[in-house]
């Protein structure tokens, strides 16, 4: 007899929908989460906690990662990949380790993927050096689940007509948009005059109370911050709390799963984990669902060797960890100086709580000979610069031209100017991160974490095409800001992968030779093992994709019920 019907590992976007759906269907579920369980009452607007110290992410001396960065070519033209632990490279791929995962800290800009995103290869053809494949399912199959997320997680928004408007099965969003900042009006007028289609960005944020969750209180500190009201659609507040309330779901925090044990036939029998004291514990279940976020999911499967899986679960064809993807991008910024404004406009511009909630998708598909004809483009998302004051102040300690430090009176003048004389509107650029042979996760042969298990080794090569598209979009974003009257408009497009938008590594597909999961997100040669976080995605679309992860996890939950 198994301890539980279903054991879910991880508790973020990929986990919540599965736990809720199965618990509501009457199945016993356990969720194993490596981090602590914080509630609304534990979240405060404290920049030290959220942005400057490692409270929601592990300390890197305890849980390091090894990163491989491109560092040029040798004399024979072969790429050189320099490997460094986090201490040297200055970044890591942890994005939120606590019940609810990174969804606690997301900004909740929510986009559906478009039908073309499911068939990138068929629509746009291959690109040399990129492993683009079509998805084994189409938009139609996911659409009912996008609609389900709107209701279950709580997505607020407003429908407008648009060349790339979403195909919807429901008439409207279940919640109206959250309060909007005054600058939206200017944005709308200017972008319409430019013959663009200002798009109210859907948000995974409740504008008013629903169930046990309060409505948004417009704290002004949303992205990167845990939500004290429950308005943000984190997996914890929106789904797991309800799963627990059914009486069928148990959440075990501080449970770091290090291995899935499989039998001779290849079926997974138990999950082994370290508890808070470091002691080894074991849980058996009929079905196991892995949702540890892309990097850690691949790491766990690779670490879980067994008689039938000598190279790790699902890795008979060496596919686990391959084709890791992120979201390509960068950002741009423009300054709106109060000096040129009336006192009333200045007042309105200074308001901190309401959201900008505006995007542009006019270039989701680009038809421009400069880019070689019809190519996949992407999204521009607009928002006020984050209010985090310490981080803003720190960026003023440099004279970026001379590279010298600034202090004394000049520093104080700079601070006064940036804090009190203007506000900054920024945009973020989202283009497809093309999967390549140079972006993958493996196990590091030497470096171990504090429990003595091998850590993830991550190579993060990007494809140049993505930067070309990114630059194209950034140029458009800068034009909009300039027309809006912003000064000092600039942008940076980069191949640096953002740590918080990671997917791929366990692609789904119909051919076990080049995918890890089947179309139902079950590991090809394992009857009772599913992967439901962003790992399944062969390509990621060109917008943030957490809505897609949520929707797919609801879809897979329905498949799991049929398999129980």
């Amino acid at each position, binding site marked *: 007899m198994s301890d539980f019907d279903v054991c879910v590992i991880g508790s973020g976007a990929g986990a919540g929908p599965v736990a809720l759906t199965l618990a509501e269907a009457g199945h016993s579920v356990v969720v194993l989460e490596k981090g602590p369980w*914080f509630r609304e009452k534990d979240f*405060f607007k*404290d*920049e*030290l*906690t959220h*942005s*400057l*110290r*490692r*409270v929601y*992410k592990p*300390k890197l*001396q305890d849980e*390091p990662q090894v990163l491989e960065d491109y560092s040029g070519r040798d004399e024979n033209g072969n790429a050189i990949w320099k490997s460094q*632990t*986090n*201490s*040297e490279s*200055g*970044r890591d791929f942890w994005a939120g380790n606590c019940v609810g995962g990174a969804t606690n800290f*997301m900004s909740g*800009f929510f986009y559906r993927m478009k039908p073309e995103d499911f068939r990138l290869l068929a629509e746009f053809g291959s690109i040399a050096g990129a492993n683009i494949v079509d998805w084994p399912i189409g938009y139609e199959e996911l659409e009912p689940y996008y609609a389900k997320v709107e209701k279950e997680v709580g997505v607020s928004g407003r429908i407008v007509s648009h060349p790339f408007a979403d195909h919807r099965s429901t008439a409207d969003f279940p919640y109206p948009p959250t309060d909007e900042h005054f600058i939206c009006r200017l944005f709308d007028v200017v972008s319409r005059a430019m013959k663009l289609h200002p798009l109210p960005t859907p948000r995974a944020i409740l504008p008013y109370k629903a169930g046990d969750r309060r409505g948004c*209180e417009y*704290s002004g500190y949303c*992205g*990167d911050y845990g939500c004290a009201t429950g308005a943000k659609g984190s997996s914890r507040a929106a789904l797991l709390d309800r799963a627990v309330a059914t009486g069928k779901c148990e959440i075990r925090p501080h449970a770091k799963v290090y291995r899935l044990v499989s039998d001779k036939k290849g079926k997974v029998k138990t999950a082994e984990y370290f508890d808070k004291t470091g002691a080894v514990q074991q849980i058996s279940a009929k079905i196991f669902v892995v949702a540890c976020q892309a990097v850690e999911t691949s790491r766990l499967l690779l670490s879980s060797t067994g008689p039938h899986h000598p190279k790790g679960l699902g890795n008979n064809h060496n596919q686990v960890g391959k084709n890791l993807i992120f*979201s390509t991008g*960068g*950002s741009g910024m423009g300054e709106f100086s109060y000096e040129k404004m009336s006192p009333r406009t200045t007042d309105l511009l200074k308001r901190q709580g309401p959201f900008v909630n505006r995007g542009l998708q006019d270039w989701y598909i680009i038809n421009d000979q400069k880019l070689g004809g019809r190519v996949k483009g992407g999204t521009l998302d607009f*928002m006020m*610069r984050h*209010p*985090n*004051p*310490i*981080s*803003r102040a*720190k*960026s003023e*300690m*440099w004279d970026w031209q001379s590279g*010298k*430090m600034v*202090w*004394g009176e000049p*520093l*104080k003048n700079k601070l*006064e100017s940036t*804090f*009190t004389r203007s506000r900054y509107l*920024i945009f*973020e650029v989202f283009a497809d991160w093309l999967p390549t042979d140079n972006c993958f996760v493996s196990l590091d042969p030497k470096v171990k974490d504090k429990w003595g298990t091998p850590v993830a080794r991550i190579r993060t090569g990007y494809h140049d095409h993505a930067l070309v598209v990114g630059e194209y979009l950034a140029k458009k974003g800068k034009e909009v800001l300039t027309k809006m009257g912003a000064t000092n408009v600039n942008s*940076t497009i980069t191949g*640096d992968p*953002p*740590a*918080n*938008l990671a997917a791929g590594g366990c692609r789904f597909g119909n051919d076990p030779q080049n995918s890890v999961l089947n179309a139902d997100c079950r590991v090809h040669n394992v009857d009772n093992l599913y992967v439901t976080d962003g790992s399944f995605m062969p390509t990621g679309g060109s917008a*943030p994709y957490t809505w897609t992860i949520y929707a797919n996890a609801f879809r897979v939950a329905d498949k799991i019920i049929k398999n129980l």
Partner: protein
Amino acid sequence: MNISRLIFNEWENELPLSLVTKHSRRQFIQRLTHLSVFAAGLPVIIKTKSVRAADCSPDLIKTNEPWQTIIAVQNHLFPAGPKSPGAIEIKAAEYLQIILAAPDMDPEECQFIINGPQRINALATEMYQKKFIALEDGAREKVLRRIEKNMAGRNWLISILSYLFEALLSDPVYGGNPAGIGWQWLNHQPGYPRPPQNKKYWMLK
């Protein structure tokens, strides 16, 4: 080898690798731009060398070294203005003492900060035959600019300034920014709810 070379060489041996990363230009750029959907790259703290056994608990007597020098440097970097608070008003030294004593402080980083004044005073003595606190403003500036050119020195200054900004703009619950003096100066509106005494970052687990 001249004395300042010696000072700097020794100092660089003490520089924790974690700080170089934490203070890298990339970290600053990331924090500046990517804060919403693309989350900020957070400071990386990792022990790369074995930590010396020396006790890092800061000496709370401000009239003693190393605090005399640290306070003098803080005042030089962040002087009070006619309408703006300086290092003293924002309690930069008190704040730094609290943070260095916080349970999650990296002992190597703490040690590095505490040892800085020795180097600064050695350099000040080489340049002006006086300790840093005995120097006029102009001479202080010259010593600090010299320090800035050295990797360890630059990282030390970045640390001092970074914690000074925290004292200026973090929640008063941490001991700096008394009654929100820094927020008022910069017209900054804090977010709510604000952290209570029993929920400081090292207490959340």
